[in-house]
């Protein structure tokens, strides 16, 4: 099993078929990466979003509690 091309330039050129072969491989690569990145990012983004909402709700509850305390104690 040998490398079929004598130089790197020839490898890119692929005897004239380079543009077709490389276009096919690049589009495939981009699609495959998207199929991994999109769900992973979606999951972490969802967690971050929910956390933010949780924090806001918590802060609001705490703020409401501190406002409410002096009234009840005084």
């Amino acid at each position, binding site marked *: 099993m040998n490398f079929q*091309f004598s130089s790197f330039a020839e490898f890119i050129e*692929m005897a004239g*078929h*380079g543009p*077709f072969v490389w276009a096919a491989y690049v589009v*495939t690569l981009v*699609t495959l990466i998207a199929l991994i990145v999109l*769900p992973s990012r979606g*999951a972490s983004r969802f967690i971050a979003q929910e956390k933010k909402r*949780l924090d806001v709700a918590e802060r609001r509850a705490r703020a409401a509690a501190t406002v409410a305390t002096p009234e009840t104690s005084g």
Partner: protein
Amino acid sequence: MNWQWFHRLGSPRWFYQKTQAWLPWLAIASVVLLVTGAIWGLGFAPQDAKQGNSYRIIFIHVPAAVLALVGYYVMAISGAIGLIWRMKLPFVVMRAAAPIGAALTFVALFTGAVWGKPTWGTYWVWDARITSMLLLLLLYIGVIALGQAFLQERTADKACAILALVGTVNIPIIYKSVDWWNSLHQPATIKLTESSSIHPSMFYPLLVMVVGFYCFYAWSLILHTRQQILVRERKTRWVQQMVASGSTRLVEEGGKA
């Protein structure tokens, strides 16, 4: 007969927990196999006598087409399991399989078209397989669009499952009839390299790529399913705990749950 494992399969939390350990292995296997296969196919496999270097597209075209078709059956069978046993998880898998299948069908079509230009002199011919692939893409898009059209997730799941099953019955009919139609309209179709007659030096890298695509499919399917599970189970305690910790990793508290 112990059916516990089967019912566990219906539990999204169990799935989320189990697959967490599989993900790194699947990722490593997919990347190693795909990179090896691609380098082998692009640089080391011999040139094709007739098609020159353009045939090197086969190493992504065929695996993508195989997984596009297999993916439809994954989707339909998951849907059937969900309908029959009324389980949550198979529906999630089914819905997750649709965009992956559509993307792989697109890859198969695109690589086929780009391969067609140097080989047949045109990007698009109404070849039987290309036409069937186009119809398969429409079947996938139909399932995705139907799933998005419903307000209630439960209704969407069941409707998609029915459509996927109807498609499964029809896929062989569509393939056969398109095959027949093609032989009628274009008697002199240029046949792609038959995989049975392919030389071993070209077949092995192809085999590596096919296995790599299978691993990749499992990897992507699990990732999509996990994301869907998080969104759907957002009200449950275990997802809320993950939200509180700010990580997508599920950490078991105190041994086995």
